[in-house]
């Protein structure tokens, strides 16, 4: 434990690089998942089409996708012997972003669908009365749901920040290149450095806590200033 604290205080470059990579990978994956998952969720909430119920069930079920399974599938896709091998993305941070984005998009989509559906049932009559067009409808619902959507993104972020199964398979836990907090904790554990691993775990938790606190203060500020 003291080792871990010492690492922070001494501004250990290696630890800093690992922390930075963890944040970059997980935040990028979260944004990607939001860009794909939120419109998908809004679509599932608002548009009637055949197979809509099946889509909702699938999205809900995929919230529980095992990270290691996602990692395996993405690994097979990105491997040189796989369909996207030409891109040479395996064992790079980009692969980790992709794997985590795949992992959390169902969460973002399923929760967005629920939130938008609830809001729509509240707004439906008024929107019909005001003759609000479909595009304006979607943007109004997403904007009015913004606080819930931030919480949804935080849920996705938390899930991605916590997982190790996907990033270790597609990233390879390469020293100085694809090593993140969770894989480092796994590695130090396998080396028997249990106290250090626990210390790193605490650092990871504080990182996640900080991101959440930041999001909370943005919300408070927003609430105060009308909108």
């Amino acid at each position, binding site marked *: 434990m003291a080792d871990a604290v010492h690492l922070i205080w001494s501004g250990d470059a290696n630890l800093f690089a690992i922390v930075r990579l963890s944040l*970059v990978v997980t935040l*990028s994956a979260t944004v990607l998942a939001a860009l794909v998952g939120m419109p998908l969720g809004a679509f599932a909430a608002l548009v009637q089409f055949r197979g809509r119920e099946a889509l909702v069930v699938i999205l809900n079920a995929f919230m529980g996708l095992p990270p290691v399974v996602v990692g395996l599938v993405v690994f097979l896709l990105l491997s040189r012997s796989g369909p996207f091998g030409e891109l040479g993305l395996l*064992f*790079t941070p*980009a692969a980790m*972003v992709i794997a985590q984005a795949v992992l959390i998009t169902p969460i973002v989509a399923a929760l967005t669908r629920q939130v938008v559906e609830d809001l729509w049932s509240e707004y439906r009559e008024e929107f019909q009365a005001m003759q609000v067009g479909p595009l304006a409808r979607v943007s109004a619902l997403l904007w009015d749901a913004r606080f819930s959507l931030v919480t949804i993104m935080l849920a996705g972020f938390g899930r991605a920040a916590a997982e190790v199964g996907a990033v270790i398979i597609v990233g390879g836990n*390469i*020293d100085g290149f694809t090593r993140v907090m969770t894989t480092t904790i796994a590695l130090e554990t396998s080396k*028997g450095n249990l106290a250090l691993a626990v210390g790193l775990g605490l650092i990871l938790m504080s990182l996640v806590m900080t991101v959440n606190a930041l999001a909370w203060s943005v919300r408070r500020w927003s609430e105060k200033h009308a*909108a």
Partner: protein
Amino acid sequence: MHFSAFALLLGALVTPFPSLPSAEAQEKSIVVASTTSTQDSGLFGHILPMFKAKTGIDVKVVAQGTGQALDTARRGDADVVFVHAKPQEEKFVAEGFGVKRFDVMYNDFVLIGPKADPAKIKGGKDVVTALTAISAANSPFVSRGDRSGTHAAELALWQQADLDPAASKPAWYREIGQGMGAALNTANAMNAYVLSDRGTWISFKNKGDLAIAVAGDQRLFNQYGVILVNPEKHPNVKKAPGQAFIDWILSAEGQNAIRSYKIEGQQLFFPNAGAGQMQQAG
């Protein structure tokens, strides 16, 4: 107005998306599929900076079990393999996936066990007798169970004792399917015996009540080999930097680098690249 505040926050949170490696960076880096024993022992942390300083080539080590490492290379996802299971390595080359196999270094395996020593094998020099005793005493034994070099060595030793716990799966035989460090952690927690390479054992920080029970048997010899993945099978293999790595590690300089890696004064790996196998101008 407030929409832009949100947009700004999102933008600030997204630090530059990790870009795809530039072509130049690609040239100066290789992927080496290796084993958990070389990673967990810290060997690569010691020797790779020397290689980079000399050649400027970045070595990215993906540490998996030997079986998985060879599979990764078969798929074309690595440029070089550096593992320790000679029969599997030779098969890999025979199948055409590897160019040529070279001896690099050796160490030995050690049979680790609880200080209480329920099977009464401590201090022995015969590992096959020890395994027989463990089986007879039903003492807990942790197996890697992951097609790694260590796992292959372990199975070969059971075979020499005319036993096959991997097939009969008695309750005392615990296959965990994980790396060396995990196996040692598990053995510690279960007060079990486990076969480990000496390098990982020396550098392992959670020994608890475990200690070396049997060592020094000739049959515990553990040879490491290095192979360039065949560019004819996978054109994306970085032949030049990959070969440069192999040349270096077989050269006097590379071999000295291996020799110089010590933990608490103990040398972990013993370089033994054959004179006839060294490249020119190493």
